[in-house]
């Protein structure tokens, strides 16, 4: 009897542990819901921190230009170089500009910009807010009768949601510029001819869906980074964790959103 009781104890413990894990998962889901609901509640009520929003737009946008420029340009060149042999097998290299434009505008520009920004800005947001949380700076804002959520979260999420579509547009143009360099090198095509051919197959729906996706990705990166940072715990370890999970979770969510939005857009196409 005693042995039977002893044997059943580990099972009971693991059962309790699982129940705790499930409960904590639902608590986390509720916390995320509360955080997002808090965002939509605060974003429509003044006073607004316009100066801070502009500063964040500068921090997110201007300071990411170098990495976006490099990524976009190289993506354009490499993608064109890799696609050329397959198209030339069918004697269809004249389709290259359209193919590249479709790939960059419809898929690569929003997705790659979002992933680069999730790595650069999402981690920064997570780490910055987490270090403010663990060093009691957020508490200090709260006790001095100011609203830290408004100053820290609303401004950052708005700034990244506004800035990402601009960066995506910038990425698309630079990607196409990189592609043009390669095409020009091989076929001596003029820039005007390249661009005319490139945009033949691009519809309003393509442009709209790209910009819409960039808004969704921007919001996702902002909310994830801010949520992880704002709710950080456990001292400096928590800062590292917040930065890391801000990037991992936002990348994961971006891929899921990409799948869903592509399905929806294809339905309308």
């Amino acid at each position, binding site marked *: 009897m005693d042995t039977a009781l002893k044997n059943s104890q580990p099972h009971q413990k693991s059962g309790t542990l699982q129940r705790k894990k499930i409960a904590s998962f639902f608590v986390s889901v509720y916390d995320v819901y509360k955080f997002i609901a808090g965002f939509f509640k605060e974003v429509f009520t003044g006073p607004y921190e316009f100066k801070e929003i502009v500063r964040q737009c500068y921090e997110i946008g201007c300071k990411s230009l170098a990495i976006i420029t490099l990524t976009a340009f190289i993506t354009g060149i490499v993608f064109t170089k890799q696609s050329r042999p397959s198209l030339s097998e069918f004697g269809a290299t004249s389709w290259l500009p359209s193919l590249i434009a479709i790939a960059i505008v419809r898929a690569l520009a929003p997705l790659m910009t979002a992933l680069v920004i999730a790595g650069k800005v999402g981690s920064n947001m997570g780490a910055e807010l987490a270090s403010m949380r663990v060093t*009691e700076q957020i508490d200090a804002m*709260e*006790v*001095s009768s100011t609203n830290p959520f408004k100053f820290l979260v609303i401004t950052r999420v708005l700034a990244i949601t506004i800035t990402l579509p601009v960066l995506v547009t910038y990425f698309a143009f630079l990607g196409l510029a990189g592609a043009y360099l390669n095409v020009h090198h091989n076929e001596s095509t003029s820039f005007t001819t390249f661009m005319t051919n490139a945009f033949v197959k691009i519809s309003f729906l393509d442009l709209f869906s790209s910009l819409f996706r960039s808004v969704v990705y921007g919001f996702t990166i902002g909310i994830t980074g801010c949520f992880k940072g704002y709710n950080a715990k456990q001292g400096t370890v928590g800062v590292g964790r917040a930065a890391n999970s801000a990037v991992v979770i936002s990348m994961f969510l971006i891929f899921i959103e990409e799948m869903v939005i592509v399905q929806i857009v294809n339905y309308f196409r």
Partner: protein
Amino acid sequence: MKSAGPKIDRNTIVISIKDLQKSFGEMNVLRGIDLDLYKGENVVILGRSGSGKSVLIKIIAGLLKPDSGMVKLLGSEINNLDKKELLALRLKIGFSFQSSALYDGMSVWENLQFPLVRNRRDLTKKQVNETIEQVLNDVGLLQTIDQMPAELSGGQKKRIGIARMLILHPEIILYDEPTGGLDPVTCVEINNLINKVQLQYNTSSIIITHDLSCAKSTGDRIVMLSDGIFFRQGSFEEVFNTDDERVKSFYNYYILNQ
């Protein structure tokens, strides 16, 4: 011994705490705290690390929610206040953090300007600058106005933290370990500053500390916290004139370090 402060108004209670309890998981941190703070009074809460002092002060500031009990600040029970009312009440309360909690991305001027312009939207730029300079002058650090927090010493950070809360002219001040991690000379300077603030700004304060020299020089009344309850209170001499081992161990350490 504390120098003479402002007259304590025993008829006006600015903070009233009744049967306050708080647990974290299995651990009962506060087990029935009762305290009244009178207008113009400095109460020092003494206790060892982990005795729940910081938890108590965070509950008073509304940063933590108690499990049960009542906290009344300037006549308002903080658990019954909505967000807007709590923000309004917090204008009358200053909180000096153990870590100073200066915004490290902002200069000293910006640290002081941040709460001021968000709570006093009627002030002109000139008035904002004058108020900041005035408060920095009061804490003796006007020369640091353009410096970043990373460029300041520990004592200077504490003073700027105090200046930042003084800028809103609070009626109640909560000090969390004001002399924690400072050298003895800087400790004396901070203690003097606490007394100066009490006189000049006519404030009532709760000072959380385990530093007896701070308690002796700033406290009108000393309250000792152990195992989640207040077990002794009175003037410095009254509290330490006892054979209670919990008090004696504290005092012996103090004597050794004198």
